[in-house]
């Protein structure tokens, strides 16, 4: 599955990507090793629009930023950790959302913020966790904060759970209550 940040504003992914590239005079292209196949559509579209594409490494990208001209756009692609790490660097250089398109490949698993104590729990796959800090049971939601880079872990009450066996396992996919 591929997700991209810019498409969240509406329109199809293709439309939004087209709009993003149309504003570009040149494109700095950075793709994590092994993910090149995911980027073929982007490269094709850039070619159709006759945009100069320069493939760069992470180090080259950092160096390029200082001398990049207005109209330069950036494209990055890779797994979640790769893209998030790179975005943090790029935003610290003053790159804006309008100048960057990032595609995340594979599963996106975010840290989980405990609603009760604000502890940021390590990313986990699954619907429920116990907070590492306060021990509260949390429902892992899809409500994501970019600022905190975490999804909300809502407090689950014992009353909301139905125990199916000796192991406490929630029987519902979504506890009632929000």
């Amino acid at each position, binding site marked *: 599955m591929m997700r991209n940040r810019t498409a969240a504003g509406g329109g199809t992914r293709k439309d939004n990507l087209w709009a993003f590239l149309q504003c570009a005079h040149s494109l700095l292209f950075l793709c994590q090793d092994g993910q090149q196949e995911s980027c073929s559509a982007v490269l094709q579209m850039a070619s159709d629009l006759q945009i100069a594409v320069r493939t760069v490494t992470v180090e080259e990208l950092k160096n390029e930023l200082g001398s990049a001209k207005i109209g330069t756009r950036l494209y990055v692609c890779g797994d979640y950790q790769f893209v998030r790490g790179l975005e943090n660097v790029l935003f610290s250089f003053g790159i804006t959302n309008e100048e960057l398109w990032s595609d995340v490949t594979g599963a996106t698993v975010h840290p989980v913020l405990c609603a009760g104590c604000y502890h940021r729990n390590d990313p986990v796959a699954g619907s429920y966790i116990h907070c590492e800090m306060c021990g509260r049971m949390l429902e892992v939601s899809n409500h994501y904060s970019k600022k905190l880079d975490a999804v909300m872990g809502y407090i689950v009450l014992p009353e909301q759970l139905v125990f199916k066996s000796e192991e406490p396992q929630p029987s519902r996919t979504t506890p009632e209550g*929000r």
Partner: protein
Amino acid sequence: MLSSRFPFPLSADIFQYSNNLRPLDTNVSIQVTHEYTEEVGLKRSLLKQHPERCFREEIHTRDAQWEVLNYVLHQLSQVYPEHFRLRQEGDNWIFENTLLGEEVHFRDLDNDSLSCAPLDFAGRQVQEDLILLTQYDDKLVLEAGQLCFPGNWSLYFDFGMPFMDIHTPVPGLIDDGLAAKIERFLMRVESGKPWTRLNWSLNAGRRLDTSAETFDEWGPYRYRVTEDNVGHLVHLRVEEQNLMRMPRSNSLLFTIHTYLMPLHEITQNQTWTNRLYRVLCTLSPKLVEYKGLSAYRDVVVEYLAKELRVNT
């Protein structure tokens, strides 16, 4: 003499989310009711105990916050001159709050002249929660807020989020495209033309501070609602939300005044009882779950039905 007030939120027998904003005809966006001292006291106590939870700001919003402070204090002194006075002496502003016996001196745009951030200060004078949305990149972003009485959400978590992301948890609001339409509507709100809407839910227990952070304190009461206690334990919770453009900063101020009324008082009004009964009977399963009513909706419906039978 402070007034009693309870804006009944249901205007039809069926409830679904819609853009129910309407012009605020009176231009009174701050309501001071007879619960003022109690509720402002509670807000200040929560702010002291849980500052991270109740107040957040991006520092670059300070000018916009000053604009809000200016707006709120002028509202108070113009609408309730018997309780609040605002006057200027040279560079100094003097705000008098006779309900709390306070007098504060400050200078406009001088952050050092106040004991806290301007939006925080404004919020400490009113029962309303105050949320400031800035507008850029064709979207609205929550960049400052004082929130003491949330209806099961978290300012700490939602701080810094665009309007669309804030509403991810509301069933259907994003997928149906309604959130995007409302955001577009809000972005066109003009200065001097405030808007208002009512939002509602039920609360098990009389508690204004129903934050996501404290769900394990107030949530369990949902499971303690019985045929015997429903009339006193369950409250209709209404949020009167006003929205206005701050012309200088172009930000939007969103005020939320929360009201609670126990069901046994609601049932004194036959029309209200009937309407709430019908809405609860027809509420979609997703909304029943989202509003946290699954555990006790049936008890409430049965109680309202009984009251209607008694009174007809």
